[in-house]
């Protein structure tokens, strides 16, 4: 659309890019950015925590996330007849589930859920899922989006028209409906299917941004020059245009990770998340039916989603401001 956007002029302390920089200079530069962009620094810390948890979850989770904790039933009577058990159900089973244990004890840091599973272990495992889904979906969206956007904008004409209408029609869907539809292709959606669905949804918006970047780059002198000495389509696209839109691509990638984590949480919350996996969205959902008496499962998992998304959003925003401030507000 004919939308004019004022160009933000980089501040004077803009990141200096020189040829060879010593490691100390690079560290100092990073510290400079962190000092200037405090929110970004907070985001980076959160992202590092989430990535660390995801990477080392087997060592951090303390218990298996599916392990059901139970204690011996002191009232268990092995010789009780069925009639006696019916009259007094407390004596029928040799063990009792440790349901809804309180949090902040040395045994269960975050307490247990309704089946007696350790909530801390499940949160740690959920971090791995969130990272796989967020980064996986974003990578797919950006890879396909860049390829399609590049070709669509470079060749223009009919290809461009058809591609853009296709993108329009994906964007005319409410995102969640499209996700629900794709994920339902299997009765039990797998993790791969969830990641693919999210990537497909995100591909539309990355095509948009890549396309507009390519359109402005392909007008430049150096592309014209390369064309004049006989560079082919592939060479023009890959060697001359692609490197110059890479900043935008990296920004789209990092800025949308949080969105995918959020979208997956919504799907899981609706019961359409990846089957047989422990995700934060599912935990919020299963905890909410006992929210009045035992709110801990929902509270911890909801807080985990919020902090992870917050971290990826803030870090992504900071990266965008450093790399390409013109993408602000897209």
């Amino acid at each position, binding site marked *: 659309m004919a939308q004019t956007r004022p160009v933000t002029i980089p501040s004077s302390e803009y990141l200096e890019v020189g040829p060879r920089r010593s490691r100390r200079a690079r560290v100092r530069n990073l510290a400079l950015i962190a000092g200037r962009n405090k929110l970004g620094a907070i985001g980076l810390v959160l992202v590092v925590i989430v990535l660390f948890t995801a990477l080392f979850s087997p060592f951090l989770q303390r218990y298996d996330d599916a392990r059901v904790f139970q204690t011996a039933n002191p009232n268990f009577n092995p010789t009780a007849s069925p009639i006696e058990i019916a009259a007094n159900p407390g004596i029928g089973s040799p063990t009792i589930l440790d349901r809804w244990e309180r949090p902040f004890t040395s045994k269960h840091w975050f307490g247990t859920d309704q089946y007696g599973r350790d909530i801390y272990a499940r949160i740690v495992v959920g971090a791995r899922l969130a990272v796989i889904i967020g980064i996986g979906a974003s990578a797919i969206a950006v890879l396909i989006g860049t390829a399609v956007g590049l070709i669509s904008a470079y060749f223009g004409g009919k290809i461009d028209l058809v591609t853009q209408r296709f993108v329009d029609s994906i964007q005319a*869907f*409410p995102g969640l409906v499209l996700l629900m*539809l794709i994920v339902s292709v299997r009765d039990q959606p797998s993790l791969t299917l969830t990641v693919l669905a999210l990537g497909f949804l995100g591909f539309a918006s990355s095509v948009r941004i890549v396309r507009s970047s390519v359109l402005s780059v392909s007008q430049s002198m150096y592309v014209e020059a390369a064309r004049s000495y006989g560079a082919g389509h592939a060479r023009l696209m890959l060697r001359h245009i692609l490197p110059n839109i890479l900043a935008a691509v990296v920004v789209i990638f990092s800025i949308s990770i949080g969105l995918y984590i959020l979208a997956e949480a919504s799907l899981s919350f609706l019961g359409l998340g990846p089957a047989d996996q422990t995700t934060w969205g599912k935990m919020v959902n299963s905890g909410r039916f006992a929210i009045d008496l035992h*709110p801990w499962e929902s509270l911890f998992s909801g807080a985990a989603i919020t902090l992870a998304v917050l971290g990826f*959003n803030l870090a992504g925003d900071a990266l965008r401001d450093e790399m390409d401030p013109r993408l602000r507000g897209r």
Partner: protein
Amino acid sequence: MTNYIIRRLLLNVLVLWFVASLVFVATNALPGDYAARRVASTLDMTDQTAAIEYARHELGLDKPLWRQYLNFMGDLATGDLGKSYETGRSTWSELGDRVPTTLELGVLIVFVSFAVGIPIGMVSAIKQNAASDYILRAVAIFGVAMPVFFVALLLSLAVIKLSLFEIDIVGDPHLWSEPVSAGKLYVIPAIAGGISGGAGIMRILRSQMLEVMRQDYIRTARAKGIADSGVWVRHALKNAMLPVLTVMGLTIGTIVGGQIILENMFNINGVGRFLFDKLNSRDFPPFQGTVLLIAAVIVTVNLVVDLAYAWLDPRIRYS
């Protein structure tokens, strides 16, 4: 301008045809159809093949796929959104029961978004880098990062723990017929949805306000002796609102998604829950029709926003 509108309308028709085809292909790719589900739920483990075949024939699901597609498109062209397999009622009449509810909630969500986002965005920009700015921005950043269902859950928890009110609702109350129980039903989802939307509005409005406040005409307005509040509202806010409008147009899809979640969570009998239920029971005609209707609303709103843009900012010309 007229040419532009006509071209956009034609393109929208093309987009809607794409959407309809996508929904048709996608729903037919799903495992299990309504006939199988209905038969499986009524008969036990006896031989169901004949019963399924009969039900398929009855619903027209045994026709070749291209026939079904042509029928579907033909119905759409005449404004027929199909009939529910389950109830036999037309999609339009099913939606007639639910659209008012969804609109009520949707309007409330948009209202809360603006009521939260605009004042906070303005204050935050005017008091840039003051303590209040940092606090408000922190709130907004959290608002964007929190899933809407988590906000709703926290609000419900607060209502329960502080015993603010009892949620004792029977049926589907409307704001105009039973305002008290409708208010109880809608207050938590409306605030939860509004916080998510308002946080987004606040962030854009703040950056736009900061941009606008540096312009020369703001200095001129000040030099003329206009009071601060006048400068902020009449000169700065008006110009900063344009991008906010565009973004609101684009976030309609998000609001619809939020409504699916909130309506399911709070058992509100609206379009979002209808869509979810119909997908789960594989009752496709109403599902397809509803998705198409929502898509039509979204593309129309985007067109209206673009036109409003040109009307609000005469420098923008479409050709």
